[in-house]
């Protein structure tokens, strides 16, 4: 198996570019999400991203607030019980970001269709609603006939909708554990990561833990993202922060609210980027920024028992550092 460990900096530098069609996984508002990958994209000042996501997340909120993306296609634009996403609201209401609405089932089906190589996906989701008849990309056309066109079932003659497939150039996906090759284990809901990983042209994982391949061989049934579709793996514990990673850490209530508060204005967003992106370089810096006491509190949560079967195979920081040096990216890798 190929060792595909890569630094965060290098992964973003190599796999993202301005104007790309980008997706993050799981694309959840509170749960697993590749937030730290997004932070690095902000640091490297990516622009004009066309963002495909299942739901809003703090990554989407940040991208909208910071002007990283121009277009978003998603099913949900809030942060659930944490409230409306202020960065998204501001950008969408001002017209700076065009937000195309879908639903949670239709986004999953669009990824599934792309994964299967289908031209479109027949559906009963969204038809008859304004999700079908209004397109933010063509707001002056109503009813819009090209977003989810009507199709006739060739067998029964009944009318359904045709969902366009969603094919990201890159999916950056948060996973709980991965081996060095990219065989990944997800605790908690997989949401649409199974189909997203198969829809994207390139896949970079962001893993809380790197585990020994023996762990993967013990639980092969549980590997929902296999290494054959993974290009690179970024080891980064607490990478979903301030969101949660089931089995590992809780969502950081204080920071979820503080981040959303700051993203409500341009000044606040600039402050957020300064304090929570430009202020750190290494993973140690990142943990210091969150705070040791806070980190321990987040790690001690009601789902911690879910990680127990896997703990024996988790690689230590030193072991991961050594494995990084043996990676196919090692020769090119610099710094962090």
């Amino acid at each position: 198996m190929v060792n595909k460990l890569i630094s965060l900096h290098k992964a973003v530098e190599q796999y993202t570019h301005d104007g790309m069609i980008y997706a993050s996984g799981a694309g959840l508002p509170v749960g697993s999400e590749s937030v730290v990958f997004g932070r690095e994209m902000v640091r490297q000042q990516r622009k004009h991203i066309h963002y495909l996501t299942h739901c809003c997340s703090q990554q989407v909120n940040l991208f909208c607030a910071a002007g990283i993306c121009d277009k978003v296609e998603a099913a949900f634009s809030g942060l659930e019980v944490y409230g409306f996403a202020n960065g998204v609201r501001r950008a969408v209401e001002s017209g700076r970001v065009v937000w195309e609405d879908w639903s949670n089932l239709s986004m999953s089906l669009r990824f599934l269709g792309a994964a299967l190589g289908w031209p479109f996906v027949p559906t009963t989701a969204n038809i008859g609603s304004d999700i079908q008849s209004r397109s933010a990309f063509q707001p002056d056309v109503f009813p819009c006939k090209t977003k989810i066109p009507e199709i006739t079932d060739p067998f029964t003659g009944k009318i359904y909708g045709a969902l366009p497939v969603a094919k990201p150039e890159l999916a950056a996906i948060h996973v709980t554990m991965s081996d060095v090759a990219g065989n990944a284990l997800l605790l908690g809901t997989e949401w649409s990561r199974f189909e997203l990983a198969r829809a994207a042209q390139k896949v970079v994982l962001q893993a809380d833990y790197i585990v020994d391949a023996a762990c993967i061989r013990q639980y092969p049934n549980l590997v929902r993202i296999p290494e054959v579709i993974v290009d690179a793996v970024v080891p980064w514990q607490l990478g979903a922060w301030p969101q949660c990673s089931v089995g590992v850490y809780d969502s950081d209530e204080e920071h979820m609210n503080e981040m959303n508060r700051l993203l409500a204005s341009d000044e606040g967003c600039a402050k957020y980027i300064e304090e929570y992106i430009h202020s750190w370089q290494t993973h140690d810096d990142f943990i210091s920024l969150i705070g040791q006491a806070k980190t321990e509190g987040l790690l001690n949560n009601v789902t911690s028992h879910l990680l127990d079967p896997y703990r024996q195979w988790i690689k230590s920081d030193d072991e991961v550092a050594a494995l990084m040096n043996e990676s196919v990216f090692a020769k090119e890798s610099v710094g962090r």
Partner: protein
Amino acid sequence: MNYTKQEMMAIATGREIGDGDLCIFGVGLSMLAGYFAIAHHAPNARALTEGGIYGSTPVGGLPWGIEDNRISANATCFTGAIDALGFLVASGRCDLGIIGAAQIDKFGNVNTTGFWDDQEQLRRGAPKVRLNGSGGANEIGGGCKRVVIMAAHEKKRFTEKVDYITTPGYLEGGNARERYQFVGGGPVAIITTLGILRPEPLTKEFLLDSYFPFSGIEEMKQQTGWNLKIFPGAKVVPEPSARELEILRAIDVTGMLRKK
């Protein structure tokens, strides 16, 4: 009154859940109503979230989301969106879905996407106020056998025509849903902060069915933006029993519903 309007609304919603129902709950209010029902009178109801987390009860407070740790601590199955919203909801297996509404019309069509001032602003695209969008509500509205809608009863929200149909109710009323291949039956109740509206069987227009003890027919009519008709025999909803309140408050450990 020893309970809040929100608690009455949650309990009235919970009463819609039957023992054995397969139910899908959203976050916040609807989840509290659902778990209240399971603890109170529907021990065999089965709960799923659209996040693909089944068989769990919240631990440590109201979950922050349909996927967070508080709803993941004691689950019997972790799967995903296609399983929950496709295999279970869109296939027609789900008995009851509970969704929220920011704006609603007399045929039970729900807007949770945004507010626009007028057609001109709609044609330009960007909304005056961006809301949360569908999430999984659209397919819950299409696929669940019964849908219960929860909404704050205010005139600006109960409107003749919604700005945007995020989740279809009965569309233009009557048999309009039949144009589409929805497997679900549509909304059976709109449960508000003032009372309960139910659809007239033929027209599918929502009529006043009952009102809460602290409310009344006049107040509900005043707070409704269409000419709200009254079902013959409209009556008061029984107020929460001591046991109902005790169980709801045990579920609502963070006191979300007790805020006035």
